[in-house]
């Protein structure tokens, strides 16, 4: 599998292909509202969640009307179109807005980009944090808990025994401790999002850290949501070290930028690293969904592909 090399100034890059989604969250098209690179990209491919009755979907749809976006509601066709557009251009820069994609689709898009990595110039990830909304403080029912896609089922190795769980904490009540009690890992690292809204940090801490599951305070690792570069290196170092002796399972709750970075690193080390997802929302039940508006800040992470060494 390919490796990546982060680019220092992602905001100076221009993209010729934009990949995003049209969803019920107001911020799902924030990149097209705010970023010149996204607006100016020659090709704009959007996955359409078709959530007509939910929150800002129709408003978003109207707003992108004149932007020349090509919209798909079939994921397979959408992924094929990404392959096709990349193959039609010479080493294009691809901008992927990860903000409102669900983790499974995000994983499949990143898998596709890795698959055609030799034809891509650079990839720019964008993420727009949401305005803080107090979480419900209730336990949500878990619908699925397992590998995000088959690419992430992991690999058995004689060198590795037991399980190391790396959790990107979110603010959902009890989700972290629930995962720990189901998976029963030998060691748990909890990566804690900081740098956006202090209320968000307080909610993450209250709803998860209060359970006191960490034996050692060093296993709590703060990461900056708005500084994906340092987060990328922090996750990568951790995975690299843990893979020497344990099977690594990453559970990216919380901000999608963490999920995207985890998936990228897991793809670099593929198939050794597991990435799992918790699914609690269901598109057929609008009450399980909530709108999200962007704060105005943006996290940017860009990289080029290089030949993998593992």
């Amino acid at each position, binding site marked *: 599998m390919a490796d990546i090399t982060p680019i220092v100034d992602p905001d100076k890059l221009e993209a010729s292909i934009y990949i995003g989604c049209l969803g019920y969250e107001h911020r799902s098209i924030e990149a097209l509202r705010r970023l010149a690179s996204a607006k100016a990209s020659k090709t704009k491919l959007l996955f359409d969640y078709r959530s007509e009755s939910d929150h800002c979907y129709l408003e978003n749809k109207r707003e992108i009307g004149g932007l020349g976006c090509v919209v798909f509601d079939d994921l397979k066709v959408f992924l094929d179109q990404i392959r096709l557009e990349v193959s039609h251009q010479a080493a294009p820069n691809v901008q992927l807005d990860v903000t409102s994609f669900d983790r499974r689709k995000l994983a499949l898009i990143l898998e596709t980009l890795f698959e055609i990595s030799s034809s891509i110039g650079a990839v720019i990830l964008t993420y727009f944090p949401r305005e803080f909304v107090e979480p419900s*403080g*209730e*336990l*949500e*029912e*878990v*619908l*699925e*808990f*397992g*590998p995000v*896609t*088959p*690419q992430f*089922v*992991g*690999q*058995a*190795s*004689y060198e590795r025994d037991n*399980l190391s769980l790396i959790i990107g904490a979110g603010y959902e*009540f*009890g*989700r972290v*401790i*629930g*995962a720990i*009690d*189901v*998976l*029963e*890992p030998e060691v748990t690292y909890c990566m804690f999002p900081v740098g956006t809204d202090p209320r968000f940090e307080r909610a993450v801490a209250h709803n998860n850290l*209060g*359970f*006191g599951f960490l034996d050692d305070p060093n296993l709590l690792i703060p990461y900056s949501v708005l500084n994906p570069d340092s987060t990328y290196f922090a996750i990568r170092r951790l995975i690299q070290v843990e893979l020497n002796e344990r099977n690594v*399972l990453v559970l990216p709750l919380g901000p999608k930028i963490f999920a995207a970075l985890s998936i990228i690193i897991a793809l670099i080390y593929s*198939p050794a690293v*597991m990435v*799992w997802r*918790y699914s609690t929302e*269901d598109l*057929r*039940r609008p009450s399980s969904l909530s709108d999200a508006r962007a704060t105005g800040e943006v996290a940017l992470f860009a990289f080029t592909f290089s030949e993998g060494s593992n």
Partner: protein
Amino acid sequence: MPSYFPEVAEYRNIVLVGPRGIGKTTLLKALTAPGLTALHRRDDLLDLLRPIDFDYIPIYIPAESIWKGTAGLVAKEIQTVQDRDLILGGLFTDHCLHQLVSSFEEAAIPAGAGHDKQPWQVIVSDVQEAQIAERCSELWKLDKIQKSFLGLKIQLLQRSNIYRGAINASANAPALDAVREIGLLDFLVMLRGFMDIAQAYCGVKRWTISFDEMEIAPKSILSHLYENLRSFDQRAALKFSLFPYVDFYEEQGGFIANQASPEDAQDFHPVILSSKFANPDYTFARGLIQSECERRSVSYGAFRRYLNSSKAILPGTREFSDTGFERRPATIYEHAVGQAGDLSLKQHLISKGIKDARDIDGLRGENRRAEVVRKVFPIAEIRSYYLVKTKDKKNPSRRTSAKGYGYYHGFDQLLALTEGNPRAIKYYLNDLISDMVDGKEAHRSQNAAIPMNVDRFRAMVASQAIPRDLSGEDRSALKVLDAMGFALADGVLGDVFHPEPPLSFRLKNIHPSLKDALVSAVNSGALVVEQNVSGKKLLFDLEGCRVRLSYRLAPFFKLPTISGQERLLSGMPEVRKTLDAQPDLLTWADSDG
């Protein structure tokens, strides 16, 4: 050491039944070769161990916690049942064979160390190892012939990665073809072959094969293993650890006994570790707490006194002793009627000839005391905590939204709140002992620990994904439990005092939409099933069973930690009061003063 250790350790088929955290894994790990060696080094256990026949090579096969999630993905990604069975069966078999080799290695000692050999050990020379590995490579259809146990394990891991790769069949068709090429692997056939080989080269004649946490293994394989309890092999005793509800026949439409089916007591010996529905025995739990106190250099007696000293326990309502506590009915009466305004209790007692608190202490006769004191005051006590006096003459008391947990404070309540579950005890003790050492007041410590541990348990229950068709009415375990708990709380804390309110449910004609949720709740320990008279039957069907909510959840609903009458449950119970009226645990309150 739990009292049932000798039962489990004996050379015979065992089915060990209990919810998560009850100690099944600890027990089965103690029966591995390194575990037995360590146990026999403890002088304090020698008398207990001496009568037990350990003349067998112990094989320990644990499940992997990631199996369930992986199986869910296989079900979604792989189109045909045949391919799904090949992949899941292959992953399971290669995992078990790997563990089989590892366990055998642990029991093996080199040829020169024969004078120290224990009954659970086997002498294996390098030549014998090479011979065994070579024969196993052929029998297990490995890609290359191996000459060592290490080689066998690496080959098995490599093959298991082929199965993993096949899950991504849409992108990796050759991997699925390779899996089809390997064909169906039968672990029991391969295990029997290993026993033949080890007998031929090393003379091993007796084995125990312990399958731990097998409830997360593929169900079709589990039912196959279970059927083999009847007649697997004379040389091996099989030991299973299972959740309370046996659900591996669900895919076949439920368990229907046939001639091949093993029978309790005849083909295997069931050891039920589930929480007791009533009259629990906390001897082992007390021992665990005592050990933990010693480990942390804290006096066990001081720890008990610390918990019992909580200011949130209503003054004078409990008389503590070394064996537990006794309720003081007259004082409870004063709190309930005087402070909480429970005039309904007062009316009830008047109807029994009790006009005020002084009459209670004067009661004579066993039957009379049972009728008036023992039945009434456990309920009166919890009402005295969670009812509050009002100025409304029509409704002189109402349920309080107080966030304190005083009713649940004290050492004996801690035993109840954990149901004696070792893992639950450990979670509670982590904080409570630290708080005691740090000088934190007992009521504050318990008020923080109780809701945190209740929420932790609820989070674990909520995290048990149940595959469901959301277009229908299927319910999550937590939703069903909450409805059950709040419905019972209505009876306990309602306007009218009931001396014996329902505190359990009899499951009758259960609506299909509740079935999976109830099974999940039973298996996570959130529902405790009343065992039949003998207490020795595996549970294949919930219909007709009596269940109560685990006391681990009691503070969430404000339910007493006692068993009570039953009511029928067929569908979702209706809750009279709105949930808003319920005290909120989420803030991990620090009330009670």
